[in-house]
């Protein structure tokens, strides 16, 4: 039968601190399910980011290391190089990875570090109160762009997956989303593939997950899903940007 849906074993019983409708909890669950299914619970080390997911270590019971803002790839590099037998993943948001930590992630991808990054793109700085992020959509209102993001002043949103896939070093770079059940199934497959590439010692892997932030967008969760589908998915195209087999990028 096999149609059983229950909380993955590696997730703790603690309720998350996230706002109602925040997809962080969902992405935590996908990562936890993949860890369970691959049977790597005992040798997985996560790098917690600075951002809303800072307390991820309360929810997934594997070893975690907290990193400075944006520096998770640097820390993952250290852990993975000292202990290549461990499975290392970083979990970062867009303020963390796309802004402050963009140098770290580009160089980690370029060096082909064998760890996995889960990059949660919700188009806003969540924890600090909804400021404009590098991934904020044109015209989107945030607390630091109250009249909407002006493209002529701050440019267009950064497409991290496409940016990283221009790097010649082999890697697995993909963009997924979790706003609809069918996309969630695909996102889980992508996360599993990313972990598998790491377990095979093949390449750097990054899964960008387009997600929602109802609180800072000022929408209800259901409206936020609709907004993300209409606005973000037409700009942030889903799918694999680069695989280690297709050496060249997009």
């Amino acid at each position: 039968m096999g149609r059983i849906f229950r909380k993955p074993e590696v997730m703790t019983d603690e309720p998350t601190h996230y706002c109602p409708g925040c997809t962080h909890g969902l992405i935590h669950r996908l990562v936890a399910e993949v860890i369970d299914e691959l049977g790597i619970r005992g040798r997985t080390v996560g790098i917690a980011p600075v951002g809303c997911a800072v307390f991820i270590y309360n929810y997934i019971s594997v070893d975690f290391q907290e990193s400075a803002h944006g520096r998770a790839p640097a820390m993952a590099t250290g852990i993975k190089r000292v202990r290549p037998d461990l499975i290392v993943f970083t979990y970062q948001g867009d303020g963390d990875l796309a802004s402050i930590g963009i140098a770290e992630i580009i160089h980690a991808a370029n060096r082909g570090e064998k760890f996995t990054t889960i990059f949660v793109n919700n188009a806003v700085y969540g924890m600090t109160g909804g400021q404009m992020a590098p991934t904020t959509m044109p015209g989107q209102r945030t607390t630091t762009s109250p009249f909407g993001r002006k493209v002529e002043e701050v440019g267009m949103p950064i497409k991290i997956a496409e940016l990283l896939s221009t790097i010649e070093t082999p890697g697995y770079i993909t963009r997924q989303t979790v706003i609809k059940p069918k996309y969630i199934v695909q996102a889980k497959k992508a996360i599993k593939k990313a972990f598998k590439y790491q377990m095979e010692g093949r390449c750097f892997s990054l899964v960008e997950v387009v997600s929602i932030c109802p609180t800072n967008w000022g929408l209800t969760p259901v409206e936020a899903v609709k907004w993300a589908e209409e606005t973000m998915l037409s700009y942030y195209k889903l799918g694999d940007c680069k695989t280690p087999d297709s050496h060249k990028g997009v």
Partner: protein
Amino acid sequence: MDCMTYKFSIDVDRCKGCGLCVSVCPKKVLEISDKVNKKGYFPVRQAHPEDCNFCGACYLMCPDVAISITETAEDDREQE
């Protein structure tokens, strides 16, 4: 085929009442309850449990892992 049934359960105190599961349920089984839970949210409840076909869409969409669908044998109705 052996005698298996599915059990749908909602962890009321984990639920934050975001309503995402209500929006994805293909059979319109779920609705937001009017009773407050321990944290002060209005959790989701099964308004029409007889229509549920245990597809798992609500589990997939739930950001707080509050929904679980488990298999129970007819003679083994253990509670979680």
